[in-house]
């Protein structure tokens, strides 16, 4: 059914609070991406997808894709548009590129994503956040920032399954340790369990290191048909094997459950089915650790462990190097930061490197990898599975 589709290269700008415009960041990411595939030039790209959520308010730039095309020296002829699904805008772009290439509508697509936040005013981000849930009803009452919502999720998970604050902190200690090796991460410094447990509270029980930061940054990948991929690179090919993207509710009040993410289960089951793999086949995963509790629930609903055992999963080191499935090996959102549209692309780059065998720290022999984004107040979930085998 259709052609095989590969991810053949990727690169990121430096992520953090940057003195740079959005176009600077896309250019930095695009250059890093082309540098990763010396056999391919910007002239070979026939499509462009740009994932960005806050571009209109914070970057004040609509019609973003043609601008990015111009700055990257790309002349797209099969697709040239922006994709938006908030925190999953980037991985949505990869799914669409996959479909376009698989069906023969395009051959080589650059998928990029990123955000420039804190402009034109710093408060703009926290104003726009209100528009990410149910703006007219919940937003009008000041309900909409992620930390209070995820604190409710954490409290419920702790109550239902006995998950502890120490286990939450262990996620950030692990991810900060991984991020310390990543030269593009916003935070490249390890923290101790004591640092995490004694950090200032944000919304009980979430503390400073339980929460990802506000980040400027961009990332880019090249998606190509297998045939074209072989023309451009001699490195091991990494295939996109399966995808899923699901939503079962928008308003957080209408979630079937706060601690079992139905849409994540649906999206991951779709991705596993299409890829012909099961959770135990995943060698390495990048999951959406916007908050430490998110990663714990993701272990469970992705099927890496039983429901309610996510806390124990991190405590026993099963999501660390040497464990069942190392998770967020590049530092995740907690270390790298979270420029919404860039995150899914950043995850894809780390999986590409892990499967290709040239990661900062390698999961030995990894052949199958997974990325997961949640978006909104868990209103949608996006899962992609990549592999060295078709």
């Amino acid at each position, binding site marked *: 059914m259709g052609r095989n589709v590969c991810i053949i290269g990727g690169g990121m700008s430096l992520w953090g609070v940057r003195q740079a415009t959005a176009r600077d960041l896309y250019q930095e990411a695009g250059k890093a991406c082309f540098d990763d595939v010396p056999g391919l030039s910007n002239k070979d790209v026939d499509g462009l997808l740009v994932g960005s959520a806050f571009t209109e308010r914070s970057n004040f730039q609509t019609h973003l894709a043609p601008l990015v095309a111009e700055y990257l020296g790309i002349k797209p002829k099969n697709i040239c548009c922006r994709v938006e699904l908030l925190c999953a805008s980037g991985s949505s772009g990869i799914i669409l590129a996959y479909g376009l290439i698989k069906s023969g509508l395009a051959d080589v697509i650059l998928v990029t994503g990123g955000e420039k936040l804190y402009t034109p005013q710093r408060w*703009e981000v926290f104003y726009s956040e209100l528009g990410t849930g149910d703006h007219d009803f919940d937003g009008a009452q000041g309900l909409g920032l992620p930390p209070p919502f995820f604190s*409710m999720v954490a409290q419920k998970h702790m109550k239902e399954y006995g998950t502890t604050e120490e286990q939450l902190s262990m996620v950030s200690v692990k991810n900060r340790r991984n991020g310390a090796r990543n030269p593009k991460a916003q935070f490249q410094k390890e923290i101790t369990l004591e640092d995490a447990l004694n950090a200032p*509270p*944000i919304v009980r029980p979430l503390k400073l290191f339980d929460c990802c930061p506000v980040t400027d940054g961009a990332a880019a990948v090249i998606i190509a048909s297998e045939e074209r991929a072989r023309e451009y690179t001699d490195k091991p090919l990494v295939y996109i094997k399966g995808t899923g993207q699901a939503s079962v509710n928008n308003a957080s009040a209408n979630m079937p459950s706060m601690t079992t993410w139905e849409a994540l289960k649906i999206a991951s089951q779709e991705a596993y089915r299409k890829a012909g793999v099961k959770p135990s086949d995943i060698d390495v995963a990048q999951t959406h650790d916007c908050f430490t509790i998110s990663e714990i629930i993701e272990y469970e609903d992705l099927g890496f462990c039983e429901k309610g055992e996510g806390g124990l999963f991190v405590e026993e080191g099963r999501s660390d190097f040497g464990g069942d499935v190392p998770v967020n090996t590049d530092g995740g959102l907690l270390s790298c930061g979270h420029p919404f549209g860039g995150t899914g692309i950043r995850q894809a780059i780390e999986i590409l490197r892990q499967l290709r065998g040239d990661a900062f720290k390698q999961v030995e022999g990894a052949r199958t990898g997974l990325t997961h984004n949640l978006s909104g107040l868990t209103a949608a979930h996006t899962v992609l599975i990549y592999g060295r085998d078709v």
Partner: protein
Amino acid sequence: MGFEKFGQVSFTSQTRAAEFVDYLEKGEVRATKCNECGRVFFPPRADCSWCMSSNVEWLEIKGQGKIDSFTKVNYAPTGFEKDVPYILTLADFDGIKVFGRMNKEISEDNVKVGMAVKVAPLTLSEGKITYEFLPA
């Protein structure tokens, strides 16, 4: 028009569900109920999202609900800075889930998961109106 009165900060004036505010002003918090398939929606909506029927009626959310979860907000979004702290609450009224704030006079120590609450309109300054939870 009319919906600009809703909430601490209003983001829209024009909605087909603007009657929601008229009911708040009469002292009632209402959801919409589909007369074809019977499904109830909150926040209210002009058409049924399940069977697409436009034959919907306004149904008052009354009686006791139970707190499903809550959290104390210390950092507010832009425009709401003066409101903090407030207690964000999700309550369940026989299957109708309502997201809102707890009455300002209730301290965090007195809020418990499973606690009985009612939902009632709250008149704000400058002609604005919203709803809030109160212990039942």
